[in-house]
């Protein structure tokens, strides 16, 4: 039951996207997706932890006995999260202050222990690392998209606060719609739920129409076969 690299990429980005399909890690997802940069910041931190934890778990998968497996995974994840938190505090201090408690909360993101248990503990190191990276990117992409749309609809800006992450020169990246009052609802917590729901709906819609197209191709192929 070995998964091909192609499948791993597909799973992480789309088919088994942790935010849109598995619906894991919703607490940080909903709370930090009020701007594009906040979303990106937490998404990248989560990705980093996912890659580190998946790699380590895969490395030690034959060493750890099944009965202490979960506590060991939790230990590994918690250590990495703390290390990432301290590093962010040291190098991205302003962004760290905004993301605040959601960085330590990465520990509680079920997506991470989920990937450790379901994938990394059964696969080789390169595959586990790639899985972590792809799952992380898939999660970060959803966070970023949700953050960007909430920011755009809610306050009519995009990439506000980019300098917190990319330094002073990024201050000019902020795009602002002139004379736009903003829809308050998008920034408030309900906006996060509505936004995520819409994203899931769009994903399902794309999947459905793809499936339909495939079926039609199959039918028309059959038709050709019969007439021939």
């Amino acid at each position: 039951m070995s998964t091909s690299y192609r499948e791993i990429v597909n799973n992480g980005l789309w088919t088994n996207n942790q935010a849109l399909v598995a619906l894991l890690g919703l607490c940080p997802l909903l709370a930090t997706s009020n701007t594009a940069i906040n979303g990106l910041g937490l998404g990248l931190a989560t990705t980093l932890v996912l890659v580190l934890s998946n790699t380590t778990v895969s490395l030690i998968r034959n060493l750890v006995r099944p009965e202490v497996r979960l506590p060991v995974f939790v230990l590994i994840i918690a250590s990495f999260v703390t290390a990432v938190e301290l590093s962010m505090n040291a190098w991205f201090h302003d962004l760290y202050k905004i993301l605040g408690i959601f960085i330590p909360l990465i520990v509680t993101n079920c997506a991470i222990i989920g990937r450790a248990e379901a994938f990394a503990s059964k696969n080789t190191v390169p595959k586990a690392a790639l899985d972590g990276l792809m799952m992380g990117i898939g999660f970060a992409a959803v966070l970023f998209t949700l953050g960007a749309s909430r920011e755009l609809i809610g306050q009519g800006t995009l990439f506000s606060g980019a300098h917190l992450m990319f330094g002073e020169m990024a201050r000019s990246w902020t795009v602002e719609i002139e004379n736009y009052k903003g829809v308050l609802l998008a920034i408030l917590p309900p906006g996060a739920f509505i936004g995520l729901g819409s994203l899931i709906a769009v994903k399902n819609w794309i999947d459905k129409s793809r499936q339909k197209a495939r079926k039609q191709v199959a039918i028309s192929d059959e038709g050709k076969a019969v007439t021939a």
Partner: protein
Amino acid sequence: MSRNILVSALILGVFGFIGATLVAVTEFGTHERILENERQALLRQLYEIVPKEQVDNDILAHPLTVNARDALGQESSTIYVGEKGKQLSAMVFEATVPDGYSGPIRLLVGVDSNGVLLGTRVVAHKETPGLGDKVEKEKSDWILGFKGKSLTDPKLDRWKVKKDGGDFDQFTGATVTPRAVVNGVKAVLLYFDQQKDALYKEYLDKAKTKP
């Protein structure tokens, strides 16, 4: 059986040790930088309120800690004292207003030696985005309007929002938040007026014992 448990416990212990080591090493490597970051962030905040040329001492060197719940709204408030030419030139107060629209609002209030406001900033709040959050400097210029005000300008009974018959603007759709901030700033000014000499003396004593 018991040997199995022992081995498992050992494995768990080893990983606990490795994890703790990783965290300790990162802590060690980032500790100084984080402290410096926090110091710089605080300095930036203070210098936004108090003009740099108005102080020539290290404003962070001897902060005072007071318990003035009635005036400053918190059990323990820090006060930063700025001097110029060995004379008191500015004090920056940490204060909390308990009655924001959705919870307490934390303020930094800077006052010069004559009791004139150098500036005010909201450092933390939970007000409604788009309405009450206009007290943030990033969202609106409202908070900058405090600069230059004092207990005599406007008069004490005019330290209210316009809706309550005072001199300060409220926002469309939000009166509670500006009202709370105006009250908070006023309370700090009154406190400064009463305690200025005692506070400065305390600062001088502190600076003497620990230069």
